[in-house]
């Protein structure tokens, strides 16, 4: 039967509590599995619907059942309830179920608490510039919910509560800045963290070109590089990442093998630079190919010249390095390397293997063979595209002889396969290529869309040599972005946007702002604090000035807030008259005749006259004047001049202490 009662209104405390919870859930919407968010939203919707239409809420056992089910599902998804992702999912679930049984004020506080922890989890997860306003907004919703929930009755409107919360947060902001700058930072002070729990982004340590039909072209920044001194020319801006050795015919992997790192002869310019990486939750660092110097205590250089950090990059990090873009190795490769990097799955891609062996037999040296293979790519009707067709199990054969369409991964994979088939040691290198110069803050920005894969082959006398087959097929790939290469990759509007100088300028500035945020806010640590102290002119590099600045800022802020909040009290227009009367009473109290609490001004005058007859003549007119001004028939019409006159009279009154007349009398005799 339909409910014919008129719908009720959702009352403010529930509405704001639910808003805070939903806001916090939305902060995690792309990080928790979609079905968790969906289940949580159903719970919230149910609770609100029950408020409006008196729909039945689930019973106690149903609630417990649903809770257990969802917890089990979280467990199944994450295999743990510990750690940030699983904990967040669990909090989302529990908060939503708690909302189902939220009726008392205490329940609402519990939900707001869960919301606050979800907000904290969001901060720990991501600290981007675009996230910060969302966090502030959520904090404001939580504070407003706190105010609304705390009210008895509804004399404070939700609008006023929101304004009050915003004002209070605004007042708190200066303190937050002071504490942020001067509160000593001790990373990892309490416990070491189970890391690598954040979402993984960027390059992975495997590559299956045949399995991808649509390359994700994200404009997200991958890292930013600042050079000290010379910068490498565009064709040398290869940023080395995971090196892939093992191939099963379809997928390239980093593998588990290793061999001795050949000794490099560095040639040409030493490039000094600093890389600031966005979080990837992976352990590789991207450095200009080939790295010569790097922070030894934070990373290790692998046998294939890949930098592996000790800690996963879960928040923006920075490191300094030196690289040479020209290197060589004299002598032959180790036998281990020759064996490892010429291995191919025996029964896969037979046509390519046969072709490679035939071509190698036709030329005199490995170097000539490389050129011959590149010539095949150049003239064989190959096409560079971001949306290649999927490939079958023998992916290289399929690519070489059928589709002939692919992106960097396809070309690198095919090239290395051909090299290995002919017995030339070769490996796939993944990383990034290129970078956009940002003149605002003077750095190169490397985006996710600059991700690239190329090949390295061992040539006797030169050692490992970088060969980029993609550059042969699409030479402009090196000098310009991916988008310019492929006509269909962008709509006309996008192209227009990109080509507009105004948009380009705005993009540069926006990225510079992000860079500033990462450098100055997200990575603000003890070192940065010390730099700040030095900049402020403190010599000592210890915590003492930090403490003083912190305490000073705190006290100054407290005084300011006390003044600001108390302003309205002092601004009370009444009561110069009352203050003057208080002064008068204080004077008389000093003279030994304090006013009793029950005495009105006239009774007080009698009391004074009785106890200090010498004062009666001066005091009685004043007190009766006060009674007149305060309670007399013309009290409403008293003018400021009257009050001023009374004030002056009070100020003029001299009341000698009790003993003084006697002293004077003694002196007179």
């Amino acid at each position, binding site marked *: 039967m339909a409910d014919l009662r008129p719908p009720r209104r959702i009352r403010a405390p529930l509405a704001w509590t639910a808003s805070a919870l939903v806001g916090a859930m939305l902060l995690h919407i792309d990080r928790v599995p979609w079905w968790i968010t969906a289940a949580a939203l159903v719970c919230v919707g149910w609770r609100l619907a029950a408020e409006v239409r008196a729909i039945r809420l689930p019973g106690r056992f149903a609630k417990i059942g649903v809770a257990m089910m969802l917890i089990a599902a979280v467990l199944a998804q994450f295999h743990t309830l510990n750690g940030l992702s699983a904990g967040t999912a669990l909090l989302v679930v529990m908060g939503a179920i708690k909302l189902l049984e939220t009726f008392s004020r205490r329940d609402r506080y519990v939900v707001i608490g869960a919301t606050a922890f979800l907000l*904290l989890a969001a901060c720990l997860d991501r600290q981007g510039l675009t996230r910060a306003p969302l966090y502030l907004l959520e904090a404001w919703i939580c504070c407003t919910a706190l105010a609304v929930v705390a009210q008895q009755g509804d004399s404070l409107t939700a609008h006023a509560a929101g304004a009050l919360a915003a004002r209070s947060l605004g007042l708190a902001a200066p303190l937050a800045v002071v504490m942020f700058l001067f509160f000593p930072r001790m990373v990892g002070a309490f416990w070491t963290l189970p890391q690598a729990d954040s979402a993984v982004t960027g390059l992975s340590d495997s590559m299956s070109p045949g399995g991808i039909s649509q390359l994700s072209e994200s404009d997200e920044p991958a890292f930013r590089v600042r050079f000290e001194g010379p910068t490498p020319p565009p064709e040398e801006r290869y940023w080395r990442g995971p090196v892939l050795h093992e191939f099963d015919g379809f997928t390239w992997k980093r593998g588990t093998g290793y061999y001795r790192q050949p000794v490099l002869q560095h040639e040409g310019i030493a490039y000094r630079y600093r890389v600031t990486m966005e979080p990837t939750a992976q352990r590789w660092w991207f450095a200009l190919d080939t790295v010569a110097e790097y922070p030894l205590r934070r990373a290790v250089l692998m046998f294939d010249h890949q930098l592996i950090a000790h800690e996963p990059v879960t928040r923006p990090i920075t490191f300094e390095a030196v690289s040479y873009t020209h290197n060589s190795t004299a002598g032959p490769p180790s036998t281990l390397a020759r064996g490892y990097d010429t291995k191919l799955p025996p029964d896969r891609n037979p046509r390519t293997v046969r072709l490679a062996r035939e071509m190698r037999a036709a030329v005199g040296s490995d170097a000539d063979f490389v050129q011959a293979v590149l010539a095949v790519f150049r003239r064989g009707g190959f096409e560079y595209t971001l949306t290649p067709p999927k490939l079958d199990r023998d992916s290289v054969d399929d690519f070489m002889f059928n589709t002939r369409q692919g992106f960097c991964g396809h070309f690198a994979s095919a090239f290395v396969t051909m090299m290995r088939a002919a017995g030339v040691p070769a490996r796939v290198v993944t990383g990034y290529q290129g970078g956009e110069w940002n003149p605002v803050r003077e750095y190169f920005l490397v985006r996710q869309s600059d991700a690239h894969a190329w090949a390295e082959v061992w040539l006797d006398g030169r050692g490992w040599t970088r060969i980029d087959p993609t550059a042969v097929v699409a030479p402009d790939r090196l000098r310009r972005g991916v988008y310019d290469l492929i006509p269909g990759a962008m709509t006309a509007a996008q192209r227009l946007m990109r080509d507009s100088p105004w948009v380009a300028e705005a993009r540069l500035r926006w990225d510079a702002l992000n860079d500033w945020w990462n450098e100055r806010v997200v990575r603000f640590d003890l070192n940065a604090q010390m730099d700040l102290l030095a900049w402020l002119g403190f010599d000592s590099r210890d915590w003492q000035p930090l403490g003083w600045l912190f305490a000073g800022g705190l006290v100054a802020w407290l005084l300011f807030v006390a003044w600001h909040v108390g302003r309205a009290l002092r601004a009370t227009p009444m009561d110069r008259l009352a203050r003057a009367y208080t002064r008068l009473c204080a004077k008389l109290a000093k003279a030994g005749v304090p006013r009793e609490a029950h005495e009105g001004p006239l009774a007080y005058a009698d009391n004074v006259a009785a106890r200090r007859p010498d004062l009666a003549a001066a005091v009685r007119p004043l007190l009766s004047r006060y009674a007149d001004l305060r309670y007399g028939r013309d009290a409403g019409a008293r003018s400021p001049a009257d009050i001023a006159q009374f004030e002056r009279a009070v100020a003029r009154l001299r009341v000698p202490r009790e003993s003084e007349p006697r002293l004077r009398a003694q002196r007179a005799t």
Partner: protein
Amino acid sequence: MKRFLRNRIAAWAKRRQGPDVPPVELASRRVYILPTPVGIGFAVMLLVMLIAGINYGNSVALFLTFLLTGFGLVTMHQCHRNLVRTSLTSAAALPTFAGTRGTLRVTLQNDASFRRYQIEVEPTDEAPGRADVPPHQQAQLSIAMDAPKRGIVSIDRLRISSTFPFGLFRAWSWIHMRIEMIVYPRAYGAQPMPVDSGTKTGTRSRGLAGSDEWLLLRPFRDGDSPRQVAWKAYARGAPLLVKEYSAMGAELRMFDFAKLEHLDLEARLEQLARWVVDAEARGERYGLAIPPHHFEPDSGPEHRHRCLAALAAYGVQRSANDG
């Protein structure tokens, strides 16, 4: 335990600031402030956020923690401001009958230019009353008081407090003043009302006996008998008027405590209260003799109160008013 602590602290505050006589302005030095349980929870949450922020070197979490810390301190000032310099202009309890709920009337005054929200007034051991006080105005609160048995209920102090605006802190102040609520005995008993004490002063017979003569009309007051109302005049559109006879004491009653010795004490008092209430309702003149009082026959609300209060106070040890 909590109550014991609260009493001790209140006693300390009393020694510190002395007894109060309304009007009392809550000066800054007598307004105390402490976090509420919610405020303590908020602080614990901040601590967790701080530890997480420091440990993970997470600047955004730290900034949020510091922002909310500042927020908490700001709300402390706001809470204090909401209460400080509020005035209590009067506080009095209306007399009531045993077994009913009495009322404590408290008037608060706000001289400031902002609204004071959610001021709570809490007598010892009673549920608080709550009101907003608009700027430059007064607000009256009625607080229900339990009145289980006849006698004098005395309140030693009032706690005026507020957790506005965010419920994280409670600012409070004690007002030490003795408020007494007189609890009349329950009006109960089936004894017939004594007809006449025999001291007739002035009789209706002196006028025109049996006639409807009355001397004057006066406006209706609470407690007047409907039988005396000039209904005819009222029907003609006049206000409610009461006919005053020249000698209402035709049936002049004297209620004597001593004459009810066959009942026990409380029953006696209840019976006397019953008679007083009934006699007053009928507009009769009645007197009451209850040691040490002897009220000559009279009528009217004040007389009624005098009699009932004497019944309420009978045998009650009134402690010396030290408050």
